[in-house]
């Protein structure tokens, strides 16, 4: 290929996906619909099956059952074609630290089939995207954590993919780099790309995503528009009021009077947030040891 080829609007459709590692079902009969052009948040605790689902979507794992379509291309039938459509930003800093920034960008562009003048153009674009224009000849090992994260993102996008999968792309970065990554993702989405975003930071999904799926134990527990999800959770929790008390009145007194009046209430008003929804659905127990290493989510 001489340059990137992007066809905007490809969505991801997962139907009845099952992936088994030895005796363990990492994902079982999972169905998920990521509409074309959507910025989609995929949430789940460790071992929920997120990484397995994304690996199967990227053609890295052979599903035990089910079908995955990226756009209208079946992943198991044409994995290489799907990989050219996808831009996967891995959670780990999958870069060559002893090579320069330019070397890394050229390597991945070349592997994605970018050639000739398009190579120069896309590498320049990648440098700008990562805001590393003056660091092209620097070895990656000399960059800060935030710079490496931005470069990690750039390297995944050099072939101008129509669908982007971000697997915890902001792990360990400073607020400035995080904002830069957010801006980049919003900008890519605004250009018509589909983005699937996984993270443990609920506020990131709230800030970025239009639609959210929460999964656990290899299944999707809920999938909806973000606002609808929050509205449902808010409704279930009751209506919240902001009450201002005189200085001599205590919160305890207010609670006591309300209870005496047969109106039990919380004193501090609290807006429903995605973290609350998430914990209500998946519980608070730690999940560190539930999945085998092969299926373990980061």
């Amino acid at each position, binding site marked *: 290929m001489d340059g990137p080829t992007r066809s905007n609007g490809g969505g991801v459709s997962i139907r009845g996906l099952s992936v088994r590692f030895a005796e363990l079902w990492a994902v079982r009969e999972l169905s998920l619909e990521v509409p074309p052009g959507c910025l989609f948040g995929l949430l789940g605790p460790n071992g929920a099956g997120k990484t397995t689902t994304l690996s199967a979507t990227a053609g*890295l794992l052979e599903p035990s059952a089910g079908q995955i379509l990226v756009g209208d291309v079946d992943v198991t039938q044409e994995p290489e074609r799907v*990989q050219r459509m996808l831009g996967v930003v*891995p*959670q*780990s*800093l*999958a870069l060559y630290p002893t090579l320069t920034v330019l070397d890394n960008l050229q390597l991945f562009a070349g*592997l*994605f089939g970018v050639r000739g003048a398009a190579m120069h153009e896309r590498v320049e674009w990648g440098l700008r995207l990562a805001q590393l224009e003056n660091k092209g000849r620097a070895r990656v090992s000399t960059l800060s954590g935030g710079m490496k994260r931005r470069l990690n993102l750039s390297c995944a996008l050099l072939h101008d993919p129509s669908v982007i999968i971000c697997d915890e792309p902001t792990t360990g970065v400073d607020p400035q780099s995080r904002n830069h990554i957010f801006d980049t993702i919003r900008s890519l989405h605004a250009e018509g790309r589909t983005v699937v975003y996984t993270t443990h930071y609920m506020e990131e999904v709230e800030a970025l995503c239009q639609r959210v799926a929460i999964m656990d134990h290899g299944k999707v527990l809920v999938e909806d528009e973000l606002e609808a999800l929050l509205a449902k959770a808010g409704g279930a929790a009751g209506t919240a009021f902001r009450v201002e008390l005189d200085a001599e009145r205590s919160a305890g007194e207010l609670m006591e009077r309300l209870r005496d009046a047969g109106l039990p209430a919380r004193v501090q008003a609290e807006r429903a947030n995605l973290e609350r929804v998430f914990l209500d659905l998946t519980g608070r127990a730690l999940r560190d040891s539930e999945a085998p290493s092969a299926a373990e989510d980061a």
Partner: protein
Amino acid sequence: MSSLVWLVRKDLKVFFADRQGALMTVLVPVVLASLLGMLFAPRASASVLHLLVVSSDAEPLVTKLVTAIDASENFEVERVSEAVARERVAKGRASLALILPPGTAESLRPENLFQGERRRVELLYDPSNEIEANMARGLLIQVSMQETMASLADPQAMATSFESWERRLAPDTDPALREFVRAGRGLKERAKPEPSAGKASAGGGLSPPLEFEKVAVAASGGARGYNSYAHNFAGMLLMFLLFAAQSRAKALIGEREAGTLVRLRLTGASHTRILLGVGASTALIALLASTLVYAVGMLVFGIRIQGPLAGFVGVVLAQALFVGGFALLLAGLGRTEEQVGAIGPLVVLVMCFAGGAMFPSFMMPSWLRTLSLVLPTYWATDGLAAMTWRGLGLSSAALPIAFLLAWASLSAIIGIRRFRSRA
């Protein structure tokens, strides 16, 4: 508990958590010490020298000598024709060949111990094994002396020898010698003489009946064609290329752990293609290193390619491909970088030791020399020797190339399969 104790405890736990690595820490020195001990320690069955013997003399004395050589604990004799002997020594397939020309029997008669007229016999040797040739020469002198001296224990044979000697004495012979020979002729009437009695001769003392003249044999022109650096450059180059392959294997496992391997796969590259890329790049590095090392060898140490250039290039290329395959094999064998770091030196050093890249093969027991024939290290050093100082033809490069390519393919296949199963 002090912090130092905690730190030590932590490191011990980390060390023993990698059981294979911990085992190798003990296994590697044990194996290497055993091999070196085998090499240098005195042993009941000393290293037996394989000696080709060419003899056109059917005289009993010659047959007796050859039988005695074969019966000695130092030699293992194989009778061959002269042409075969010369070819096998020239190609390095044999280190030593003894050529016993017609008339050797005459020189083995006891009277020759005193006459000082020694027949020259050729001891052909591979110039890369000069130590072995020197050792063989000394041992052959010893056997030939013992055999000839044994004749002195037979009064009849001794008297016959003195009679023969007396007949051949020149008119102007020293009267003292003439008297000695006459006295010797009468010995058969007396008791058996002590072999040392002859040492009292006035004819200049005892001298070996045969003079073993060492003759270096190589297609490139004998000892003059031999360059010891050529042998050592080949051995050391191979050993350090294999260590470089070990580093590449560690780096590959490091990529798997760092996630870059997955990222490469996300570009559409299959596991096999990625691993073949690693093998090919390792082979190219090996090729570059070989070129530079031999360039230094040629410019500074006078190493010459005395065989066909195509054969030399073929062996170097096949060796580089084997090094590429070996990197994949090690990456497949080790689960972690630490395991490769432990397995690698063991495999490399044992292969180089047994393959003759570190020490001359004659120092090894015969079973190890036989085993070495299946090792790529043997064929790599053999092929490079054939194309450099031995100056052999293209056909002598064919077998080393075939072996190295077979090893390269086998290593790559096993390595890729095992690595894929762990990815």
